[in-house]
């Protein structure tokens, strides 16, 4: 399991999801806090490539032995890629939630949605409360 960390340069959603924005596209995943709450991830059910995701809405589920959690999209767009490796090694979500544990890549429909997300300091503060 990874050590607790919340990288700079990512944007954060209150439901413990992160977004890495790169112009018109973004990569999404869940934060260290989310995977810690869940425990060892055993299954990730990704959306289909080509499907639409909406900011704030659940787009997938992640399962541990004893819990199921919704995964929320920080921003809206069309899914262009899903992390196929998670099918065989879902524990990457625990071990490397910001790197190999990435979940989907999305072509953003409204990049200005980034303004409603938190930066790392605001997110860390929200955890403290």
């Amino acid at each position, binding site marked *: 399991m990874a050590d607790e960390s919340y990288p700079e340069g990512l944007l954060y959603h209150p439901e413990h999801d992160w977004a890495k924005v790169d112009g018109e596209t973004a990569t999404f995943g869940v934060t260290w806090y989310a995977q810690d709450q869940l425990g060892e991830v055993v299954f990730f059910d990704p959306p289909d490539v080509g499907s639409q995701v909406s900011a704030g809405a659940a787009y997938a589920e992640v399962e541990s*032995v004893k819990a199921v959690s919704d995964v929320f999209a920080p921003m809206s767009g069309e899914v262009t890629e899903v992390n196929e490796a998670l099918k065989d090694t879902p524990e990457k979500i625990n071990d490397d939630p910001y790197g190999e544990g990435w979940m989907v890549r999305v072509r953003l429909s409204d990049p200005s949605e980034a303004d409603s997300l938190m930066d790392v300091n605001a997110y860390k503060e929200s955890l403290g409360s």
Partner: protein
Amino acid sequence: MSRYTSATDADRREMLDAIGVGSVEELFRDIPEAVRQREPIALPDGMAEQDVYDHLRRLAARNRHADDEVTFAGGGMYDHYVPALIDSILQRSEFLTPYTPYQPEISQGGLQSMFEFQTAIAELTGLPVANASMYEGPSSVASAGYLAKLENGRHRVVVSRGVHPNSRETLSTYAVGWGTEVVEVPLDDRGATDLRALADAVDDDTSAVFLQQPNFLGTVEDLGPLAEAAKRTGALLVCSVDPLTLGILKPPGEFGVDVAVGEGQSLGNRLDFGGPSFGFFAAQERYIRRMPGRIAGETVDVDGKRGFVLTLQTREQHIRREKATSNICTAQALNALAGVIYLSWLGKRGIVELGELMLRRTAYAREALGAELVNPGPVVREFAIRLPDLDAVCERARAEGINPGHRLKYYYPEYADCLLVAITERRTRRDIDRLAAVVQSVREGVSV
């Protein structure tokens, strides 16, 4: 204090002191007066064990059971021979009295037998994954409909009239909750599912198609063409199968069936006036996370020892709650244990031998009775005949100590003058000849 509780007066005093109240009555002070029972429960007082026994024995004596008569009754539950070792194992406290195996470290006996049961069902049905049991046949059929609905969200199911009437009705009852329309497809003039009618009924909004093998009349359905027609628009194909006939019949998995379900009573379980028995649920691999019920899975412990746990619990109600794949909690573990013991007892060769025996005796019976056949095509253990003087035949048979079979009139108006006759391995040639003699005597208008 009864024979099952042990609180003496002394115990009570000590316990009340420790709690800090003066009387047992005080423990119920949270219950408002308005809802307190003013009168005692209006039932007789408790009885001595021997009196309870005598009372139950007298009730039991007023039933005509399968040892009191030569029975040809079938219709989904059968008088098969249940070997003695099943009771001796099932009556062990360690199988009879524990709870669902939520603490796997002390439940390896139960979990391993579930794993073995799942394996046996998977082998029989030719499908890769099976769960650890359902309640019984008809509700398993309905559960398969629920899986199909979760899978494709369509609004219609198509079901052959060859499927057991109780299964069709249960499916309809459940389907009200899903807002799903249930469409029936008739049987043809040979007592098999009408292929053309099935093909016409299946459309783009069909969620699942239901068949039964053998069907309720005992017909061995021609599953190949039926399966093709059923799956044409992407609906799930569900087949309710009889597990015992799978010794000689091609299994549903080889016909591209998506889900196989059915009634397990014929596998080592008592008749018990209809229950408890068990249902089974087997499916293609891709449905494993949508399946209802408990599933035992293999793993290792911290010392690397092989062991078993309940797995994929995130499907289930205690975790996924309103999004669960079903609401099933308590199922039929003990009856499924009887099932796997029975299948082990029959064994790889035995189930084939048994199937062939029933096949041949059934063929003999069909000929011996010399009646008009409702389903002249292939049958294994059961068939339907049309008798113009059915009432007289039944009466004469009963007088001879024979239960001639199940009259189809209630469930099949189209077969109102027909009889469903089941031939298990317990029905000998002599039994069959006796029934044939009854039919013959009525036909000839003479007494036997």
